């Protein structure tokens, strides 16, 4: 079936899998512009119904709460604030679900070069303001110790030019909130060998690890997923740096790698790897679609569930012409649900072991 046309339905969200898991203190609420928002530090012991806060709504008048983002004070009282959870802290904020990304120092972001200036790049990181990347904040080919010369300025486009994708860390913030990025690490830099997708900024959890390596199925090798905190995601074939057989020094290795870091040419990627890259991308999209925030553990689980679903032959009901890796619509929901189930099981098992 080439096209599926569905009747409109009220917005659906998958509720957090386990009332007792860590994930539970996140709720879906409505924010200032009537968008859906997600609350952090939502009350644990409150009702199970999705609390939706609308602008102007008084959330609490309890003075022990501190006003955070997305809230304001009205004549001494907090408004648009909700929550009583004290185990994190007393700061209360309402975060819109659909919003631009607000950069914070230390965030790992994926960005796209929007403009090249004489000594810096302007980078689109899904924020209201373009991020800056200074020529001095990147690794130059020829090793870390290489001195920056004025020739580099003239060849600034040979490092990054308009449209190029990169992964970087937010190094500092300017007065106006614009981020300043750096790529001074081998794990940062230009992106190739893969596929870029964009989800809403709130879809990615700020967590420990944003560079996830999945063992892909069907002999596709390893797939790297870079989950930018800003909602930009890069899925690519894992490229391992082959240590030369002589066992040379690590600096030599770095130098060699850095020669290629600004290459625009992809390596050979087998079709089977491409297929799994697409599937991983679909998993991320489906998770965000069904409001499950993406981190390493859940992504892994959802990916496995998606594979299982394919094995079981479950695609769109009645349809057979869909791509087997496709996770649009109902299939995606099933995969995400199964993945969440998997996480829950793992969690309870782990708890069992502890107990």
């Amino acid at each position, binding site marked *: 079936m080439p096209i599926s046309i569905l009747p409109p339905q009220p917005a659906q969200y998958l509720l957090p899998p386990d009332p007792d898991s860590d994930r539970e203190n996140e709720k879906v609420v409505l924010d200032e512009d009537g968008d859906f928002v997600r609350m952090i530090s939502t009350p644990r012991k409150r009702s199970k119904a999705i609390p939706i806060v609308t602008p102007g709504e008084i959330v609490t008048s309890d003075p022990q709460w501190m006003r955070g983002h997305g809230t304001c004070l009205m004549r001494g009282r907090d408004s648009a604030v909700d929550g009583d959870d004290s185990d994190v802290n007393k700061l209360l904020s309402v975060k819109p679900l659909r919003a631009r990304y607000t950069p914070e120092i230390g965030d790992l972001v994926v960005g796209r070069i929007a403009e*090249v*200036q*004489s000594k810096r790049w302007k980078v689109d990181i899904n924020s209201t303001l373009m991020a800056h990347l200074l020529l001095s904040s990147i690794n130059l080919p020829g090793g870390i110790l290489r001195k920056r010369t*004025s020739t580099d300025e*003239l*060849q600034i*486009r040979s490092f990054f030019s308009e449209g190029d994708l990169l992964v970087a860390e937010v190094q500092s913030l300017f007065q106006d909130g614009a981020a300043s990025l750096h790529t001074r690490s081998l794990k940062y830099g230009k992106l190739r060998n893969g596929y870029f997708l964009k989800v809403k900024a709130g879809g990615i959890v700020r967590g420990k690890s944003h560079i996830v390596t999945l063992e892909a199925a069907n002999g596709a090798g390893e797939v790297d997923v870079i989950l930018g905190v800003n909602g930009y995601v890069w899925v690519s074939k894992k490229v391992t740096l082959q240590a030369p057989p002589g066992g040379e020094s690590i600096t030599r290795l770095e130098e060699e790698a850095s020669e290629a870091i600004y290459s625009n040419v992809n390596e050979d990627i087998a079709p089977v790897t491409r297929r799994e890259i697409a599937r991983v991308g679909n998993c991320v999209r489906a998770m965000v679609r069904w409001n499950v925030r993406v981190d390493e553990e859940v992504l892994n689980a959802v990916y496995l569930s998606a594979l299982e679903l394919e094995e079981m032959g479950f695609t769109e009901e009645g349809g057979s012409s869909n791509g087997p890796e496709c996770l649009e619509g109902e299939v995606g929901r099933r995969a995400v649900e199964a993945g969440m189930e998997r996480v829950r099981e793992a969690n309870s098992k782990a708890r069992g072991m502890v107990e």
Partner: protein
Amino acid sequence: MSQNLPLPPIALPGQPLAQSPPYAAGPGTYTTQNPTRTVITASVAGIPRVHADKSVSVTRPSPSHPLLLLPEVASTVLARVTRLNPRQATVEIFAIQGGGDGIHGGGDGGCVCEHTFQGVIRAQDVRATEKDRIKMLESFRVGDVVRAVVISLGDQSNYYLSTASNSLGVVVAHSDAGDPLHPINWRQMACARTGIVEERKVAKPI
């Protein structure tokens, strides 16, 4: 000149001229890949020629619009200074004298641009030595005509130019009073009428 390659007297865009293995694509041509072979094809209307190095080129005979040149890295250009500040001089490039391995760069005299291209000469690119002691006001004045070389395509609005060579620098200048200046040495020019000496980064007269 080469060897019995039958070329048409006039080539038009899209017209196949030669096969690539023996011959190479020169200015005014491009190559198309067939499954079996690579064909050198004309990309402008003009006279096809085979050169000694087995490259095939197509040149334009039209006298009114001989060449379509764009400033490229390494091409020598003539530019007029339009603005000056301590860090850089903004210029408009009005003639390209070739030099780069430009696709149309066959002509010796280069070409006059129908439209001027904006460029900048940064302070550090004025001369090759003592770069940190360069003063823009002692190198150029607004209205001077400068011979310079393109060092980068630069950003959306400016080409980056350099005059860091003996043959590069101011070639035509006028004094404050409007009299023409002529070069005395590499850093000074004098007025023939009044004898006033002004400072410039002077191009060595050819």
